[in-house]
């Protein structure tokens, strides 16, 4: 996919390959690279997957693999939790029963 210069994009860097990781990290973590993602303005037309340069929100120039054009925020509120729905009522019933304020 072509991404035009000036787009708000996300790039990815491999900070440390598995063999470069710190000696104290546990085995499951040592088996994978330390990765970094950061967003900024794309400085030249590019294709997803290419190594590109961006200018970050504070004006630093960083390079890395172009992974997304303007990625959305994906976090939300999830679903209501049935196990929690009754909690407020239970606390109120407790207060009613005791009659203490």
């Amino acid at each position: 996919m072509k991404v035009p210069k000036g787009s708000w994009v996300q790039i990815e860097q491999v900070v440390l390959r598995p063999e470069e990781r710190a000696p104290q990290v546990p085995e499951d973590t040592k088996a994978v690279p330390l990765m970094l993602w950061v967003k900024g303005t794309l400085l030249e037309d590019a294709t997803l997957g290419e190594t590109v340069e961006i200018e970050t929100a504070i004006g630093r120039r960083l390079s890395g693999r172009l992974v997304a054009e303007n990625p959305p925020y994906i976090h939300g509120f999830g679903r209501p939790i049935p196990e929690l729905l009754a909690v407020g009522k239970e606390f109120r019933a407790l207060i009613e029963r005791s009659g203490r304020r």
Partner: protein
Amino acid sequence: MKDNSYAAVMARRNEIMKRALGLDYGEFELGGLAFDYERMMEKAGYSLEEVRAIQKETSVGDTPLIELKNLTAAARALSEPGRGARIFIKDEAANPSGSFKDRRAAVSCYFAQHHGYKGVVAATSGNYGAAVASQANMRNLKSIIVQELFDSRGIGQPEILEKGRKCEAYGAEVLQLTVGPELFYTFLRVLEDTGFFNASLYTPFGIAGIETLGAEIVSQVQARFGRNPDAVVITNAGGGNLTGTARGLIKAGAAETKVIGASVDLSGLHMASDRDFNRKSFTTGHTGFGVPFTTWPDRADVPRNAARPLRYMDRYVTITQGEVFAITEALAALEGLERGPAGNTSLTAAFAIAREMPEDAIIVVQETEYTGAGKHVTAQLTFARENGIEVRRGDPADQVPGKNIIIPRDPSMIRPRDLSMKDLKASYLRNALKNRPAGSPEALTEAEAAFLAAEIKETPQGLAALLAQARGC
């Protein structure tokens, strides 16, 4: 060309830090283990009055103290006659970026601005990132926030995703990493590349910023009741929140007020494990930070940590993830306050501890935090289920962190579990002895003995007994 391997950058850490902090920690050293903590706080920090003035410039602090009448009534309903303290909460969500962390960021950004730094950097996955970005904007500084956010599958913890979004909303550059303590390596490289100020949570500025919180609690309780609070409950992770609040209480004349730390029990989960990372529903305020930082503060990103909780802590309790979620729900349903969840760790402990205290006692919870997408009970529990964690009603005593989250079947099941203060102090002493410089004399010097006694709030006799325990005698 500069060697940027992990080992080479770590070897340069002291010189990088010295420039990025504008502080020479060497002048506070007293030989061996010891350093002059109070002189460091006096010389490098700011007085309470100075901090108040700095925070006023950027609208930080002076937050409301709210009485939680319905939660107090619920605690009394579960208590023996005559028991059930009045519960108050300091609504720190009213700060500009939505948490008490603005107090810490305000002082760091003030220092950075007045010492000619062009920007600030903070390594944090928590509310502190937003606080730094927000305060930096008010002081015309640039900000870079370094977060640990994703596991190796690229799945982000919802609470940290939200904190990253908020930092981006303030115009910060946000560096988002996968799991691993080498975040510190990335942080050092950013400091070296930019020459920005290290807005660490653990400098004297970061701690002095919280002293106003403790002092405000005293003046607000004094104004209404003409006396000091009996206890203040503080969520404990890196130790700064507890240290700063306790110092503020003492400075405001409430040295007798009990200082109680509270953390969410995440025992059994490894904090640097890629697999465990998304099996927890709390990214801060938990034992994975609280216990190691309490028993060895100098593991932080500064040469000498200004957050030293054992100097002030009277009691340390843990509570479970499910208990905090239940109390967060109750806070919304009974008190009309939608806050947290992580910030409600201390509230959960206070609800349970209030039951032990007399009815006329006053227990203060010293923070709330903003809530939002990702940072919410529904978001966290939905995410937990997607990651194979069982969520059910039951007895919180049956919880296994990383396997299940148990919402208490009944409010009476919300109970604090005390960590042994003696064991925590002995563990601190073991770490201290282990970190004593090579070539030290066999016996502790006078300065070292005095330092250690102050570090764990003990008399010389108490220190001697705990040293024997630490050495395994």
